[in-house]
């Protein structure tokens, strides 16, 4: 006996297309506003300003050496003529990370609070992570047309699971004694969440956001197939024309963006909020710590 799952899926897609067009348009408009807004402002920014911002972020959060790397590598991107493509890609990454965070954080919190929610959400996350991207790229284009919006949505589907999973994990791994202390001093459920669980889950949540950013970068080329633009286009053009050089240029620009975003977002999770590591004074804190305990 054969069972034709595909026909069913086709029917569902058609049903949605026929009956939920206004809803789809509203979602497209909402996400479009976010993506296009970010893209427009990044593209409007002069190259030197963008470069300065990224270099300063690197200097502040990571250190002098990395700031030099950021400056040189971005200078290289500019001279390959890929700056605006990189900004398009960055805006896609930022928009999809924003959407993934807005949906993913509450979902992760809900998972942490209820085993039942966790049991339902977990297989969905598995599906999102393992389903080949091309499978949902086509319906995404059918629902939302071509361009940055379906690109963002496809990217969100692929990149959201880590932030959900690591938010859930982070909250669940907050030491039982902290939760017990919170309860013992009369926290309400929401006080417990915001004053005890989330602050202590922060490193894990930031790791999740970092992973989401990394995964969304890995969707860049695939998303450009449905017109998301950016560095993916460069790579795609290279592939289509069998022009290895162009493809490599696009690829190396993706890698540069990935390294910069990775190091900066990783550093956000390492320190607790309010204790910023100052450039050139990295030894200040350990010294203070040792004198206090001596």
């Amino acid at each position, binding site marked *: 006996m054969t069972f034709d799952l595909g026909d069913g899926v086709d029917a569902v897609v058609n049903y949605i297309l026929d009956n939920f067009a206004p809803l789809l348009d509203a979602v497209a408009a909402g996400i479009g506003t976010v993506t296009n807004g970010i893209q427009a402002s990044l593209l409007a920014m002069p190259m030197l300003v963008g470069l300065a911002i990224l270099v300063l972020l690197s200097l502040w959060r990571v250190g002098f050496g990395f700031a030099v790397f950021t400056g040189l590598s971005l200078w290289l991107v500019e001279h390959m003529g890929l700056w605006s493509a990189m900004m398009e890609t960055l805006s896609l990454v930022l928009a999809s990370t924003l959407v993934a965070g807005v949906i993913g954080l509450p979902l992760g919190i809900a998972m942490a609070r209820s085993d039942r929610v966790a049991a339902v959400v977990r297989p969905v996350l598995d599906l999102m992570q393992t389903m080949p991207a091309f499978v949902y790229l086509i319906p995404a284009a059918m629902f939302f047309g071509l361009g940055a919006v379906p690109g963002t949505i496809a990217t969100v589907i692929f990149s959201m699971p880590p932030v959900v999973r690591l938010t859930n994990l982070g909250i669940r791994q907050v030491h039982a*004694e902290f939760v017990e*202390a919170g309860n013992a*001093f009369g926290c309400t459920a929401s006080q417990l969440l915001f004053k*005890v669980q989330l*602050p*202590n889950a922060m490193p894990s949540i930031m790791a999740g956001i970092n992973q989401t950013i990394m995964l969304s970068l890995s969707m860049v080329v695939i998303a450009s197939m449905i017109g998301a633009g950016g560095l993916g286009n460069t790579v795609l053009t290279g592939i289509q024309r069998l022009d290895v050089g162009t493809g490599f240029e696009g690829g190396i620009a993706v890698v540069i963006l990935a390294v910069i975003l990775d190091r900066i977002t990783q550093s956000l999770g390492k320190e607790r909020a309010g204790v910023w590591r100052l450039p050139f004074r990295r030894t200040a804190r350990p010294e*203070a710590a040792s004198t*206090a*305990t001596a």
Partner: protein
Amino acid sequence: MAFATESDPLNTERPVKISIRNVFKIFGDRPERALDLLKAGKTKAEIHAATGCSIGVDDASFDIRAGEIFIIMGLSGSGKSTMLRLLNRLIEPTSGEIEIDGSKVTTMSRDALIALRRRDISMVFQSFALLPNRNVIDNAAFGLEVAGVGEADRKRRARDALKAVGLEGYDNSRTDELSGGMKQRVGLARALAAEPSILLMDEAFSALDPLIRTEMQDELVRLQADRSRTIVFVSHDLDEAMRIGDRICIMQNGKVVQVGTPDEIVLQPANDYVRSFFRNVDVSQVFRAGDIARKTQVTLIERQGVSTAAALERMEHFDRDVAIIIGRDKRYHGMVSRTSLIETARAGGSDPYRRAFLSDIEPIPASESLSNVLGRVASSPWPVPVVDDDHRYVGSISKSTLLETLDRTS
């Protein structure tokens, strides 16, 4: 002195603060079924086999009076920590009634319970449980913050509480910069900041080293006397219980086996379990030197370029006449007295510790039975150090420790 408990006539006349009546706690998926079996007289093992449930607290009934330090004692797994958490319902009782100041905690609404925890009852934890994302003052102010007290007011009250526990000037320190004793002072300040009438302490000093532990016990007794708080203190340490407890409740396998003053428990133990805490048939045969050795002496680590001044300062601070010198690897090197240190310091030269070693002190192996060392401890002018098989310093036995231990046999 552990056994010289003052018989306090006020004790019995103090009003009841917390009343516990027929309280059961059963852990597992089918507590009602397990409770029926328990009431039908089945044993723990039978109940576990039938329902998979385990019994935390088994029919506890006792009163805690206002203004007393009430110790709940027992071996691990006796249900003492569970009992403590039932009082503020961090753990929900399976059945029974708990009243605080006449109002029933067990049937209280969630909101009333939160109000009670914010106002009247607070807790100190063995592992300190300070929130690592907050500095010292914000940790101390935590209870007030969740209770909605304004920032200026709660900081002022938290600062007062920190001052009361002797921790001034660390407001903006991170908690991981503090030593264990200081951390627990913050924990104590956090519990005191809201001025609760009841303090629950879960093995609060067990993680601290003995010298600091004694200091904190004294601090607690002082704080208790100040405001006449009711303190419920869980401990597995006999000496701690005897030292600070007005009354002691002994738990065994979830059951309360005896409640009484330290005197009553020592003189009329309810059963062999209680007796085993306090009176051993022949302590000197049962105990080994390592069992009763205590780390109450000052220890100094011998390394290059040590100065005698710092050593003397520490001995002065802890009011000790002698100090134990150990290596970095905790191996026992020797013992010095204040006099011998001062003399070698006057003479000058290198290795001041070495030359100050008291010559007549030989360490006792930890495995030596107590009866074999009685004579040596009794004849030595100083506490005698005890070392393990690797020659590491375990603690020392003083005459008073020895007498205290032997006293339990009589």
